[in-house]
């Protein structure tokens, strides 16, 4: 079932006279198994939107529907909602606190009252999904892991809950190039193999376009752009004015077009762009 947002408005401390809305009348639908990137400058409302989709906040106006659970019933369904939608926060490794990798993963599962066999199975699976070997890592102290391993462990904590949607808030922050590639591969695999819907926020269109098939641009709480990633070049000016650059392959095609080439700028990746250039020579 999709995630639907209809005219969602949210204001922090709405009761204060001087507060202004963080999100204003946002509407969209994200279908099952979609991978969506959300970009926007700091303070645009990206994190707030993820908190609303995860049920941590409730819209002041409008409604959100996640798997038929409406935002008006968030409170009594919060545990159900959290099982469906996992929200990975920025620097999630800072939330690790247990004395072993196994306990860290098991802590979140406690509320699901699983038997020990099922608990162990889920933990093994989640560690495998993020590329950490169970035998090698289950009794390690989280504090002794490398920063990349910690990030993967914290994502595994969410995967163990088997969510239908995974929301990631600035998940690429602080990762080196290989860390970013590993994470993107993981997200792509989760989407392909498990059919998991993924929403990821960030600032770098080049990185997001590695996995996202659709991109949304938020500005001052409003949804300015909602487009397939392949068609981003159509919004070149709007993106440039806000400090965002197109993925390199699309930018090359855009500049060729502005120099008079008769070329379609709608492409998914670099290979397709090269083929398009070769064909038009």
């Amino acid at each position, binding site marked *: 079932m999709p995630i639907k947002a209809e005219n969602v408005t949210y204001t*922090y*401390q709405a009761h*204060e*006279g001087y507060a202004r809305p*963080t999100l204003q009348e946002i509407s969209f639908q994200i279908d099952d198994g979609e991978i969506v990137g959300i970009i926007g400058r700091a*303070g645009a409302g990206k*994190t*707030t939107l993820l*908190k609303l989709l*995860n049920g*941590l906040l409730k819209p002041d106006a409008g409604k959100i529907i996640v798997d038929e659970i409406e935002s008006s019933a968030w409170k009594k369904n*919060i*545990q159900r909602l*959290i*099982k469906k939608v*996992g*929200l*990975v*926060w920025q620097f*999630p490794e*800072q*939330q*690790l*606190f247990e004395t072993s990798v196994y306990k860290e993963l098991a*802590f*979140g*599962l*406690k*509320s*699901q009252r699983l038997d020990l066999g099922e608990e162990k199975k889920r933990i093994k699976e989640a560690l495998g999904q993020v590329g950490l070997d169970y035998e090698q890592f289950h009794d390690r102290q989280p504090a002794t892991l490398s920063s990349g391993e910690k990030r993967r462990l*914290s994502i595994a*904590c*969410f995967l163990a*809950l088997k969510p239908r949607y995974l929301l990631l808030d600035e998940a690429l922050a602080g990762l080196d190039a290989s860390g970013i590639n590993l994470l993107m591969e993981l997200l792509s695999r989760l989407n392909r193999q498990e059919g998991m819907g993924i929403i990821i926020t960030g600032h770098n269109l080049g990185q997001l376009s590695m996995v996202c098939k659709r991109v949304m641009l938020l500005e001052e709480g409003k949804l300015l752009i909602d487009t397939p990633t392949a068609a981003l070049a159509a919004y070149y000016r709007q993106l440039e004015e806000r400090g965002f650059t197109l993925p390199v392959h699309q930018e090359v095609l855009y500049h060729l077009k502005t120099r008079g080439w008769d070329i379609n700028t709608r492409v998914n990746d670099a290979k397709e762009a090269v083929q398009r250039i070769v064909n038009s020579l």
Partner: protein
Amino acid sequence: MTEYISLGQYVPMESFMHRLDPRVKIVSTLMLTIAVVSADSLLKLVLLITVLLVLGALSSIKMAEYWKGITPFVFMILITAIIKLFLVNGTSLVSVWFINITVEGLKSALMLSVRLILIIYAAQILLVTTSIVSLTDGLGMLLKPLELIRFPVHELVMIMTISLRFIPVLLNESQRIRWAQISRGINFQEGPVWERAKTYFAILVPLINASFQKANDLAEVMEARGYTAGKKRNRLNEFSLSRPDYIYLLVITIGLLGMTLNQANPGW
């Protein structure tokens, strides 16, 4: 984005109270607190309530906002009042089994509750109308004479500034960690008490880690910017008393002195 505003956090606005010199506000708050504690009649308390309501109105901040700052203390005030209610001897008002409520106990509990609310309210007026930097600068200037006896005024003020500045930061951080842990399935609301208590480690441990990290970062940044403890420093903004400051201080001082010297009949 500030997601969690702490009690009494500064609200930047343009009002008479906001414009007053912080030293004047600190001294007047102290005098008002002493007056509230020493008020021995209902009339004096009513007068103090009036004065504080006027000061609240002069701050341009709604009474409802102040009330929100008082409500977290209601439980503490109630407990203190209940203890007072049952422990004061005198003329019996209600007596059931071993419980004996006296007229004096009731008066005493009510007076104490009003006093506590007024003290919190007075402190709130000071805190919401004075930025932390102005507050600590003002305090530093008031305490300056203590430097003559080698009291580390500057260090004390710096510690206070940093502590106060970090309260909202840590409250925001704890809220962020709490939300993050809820998102990964940790349930803070259900289960037996000891199990719920254990779940709070999921907030405490990362919060302590984050606090040490922030303290370390701040120390490094301060050193990188040339801060040396104990070294004489000048101020970016020098305070100077203006006519409204003198008038305000004079009115408050005369009013409170008059009240203290008034030998009206104590009690109701």
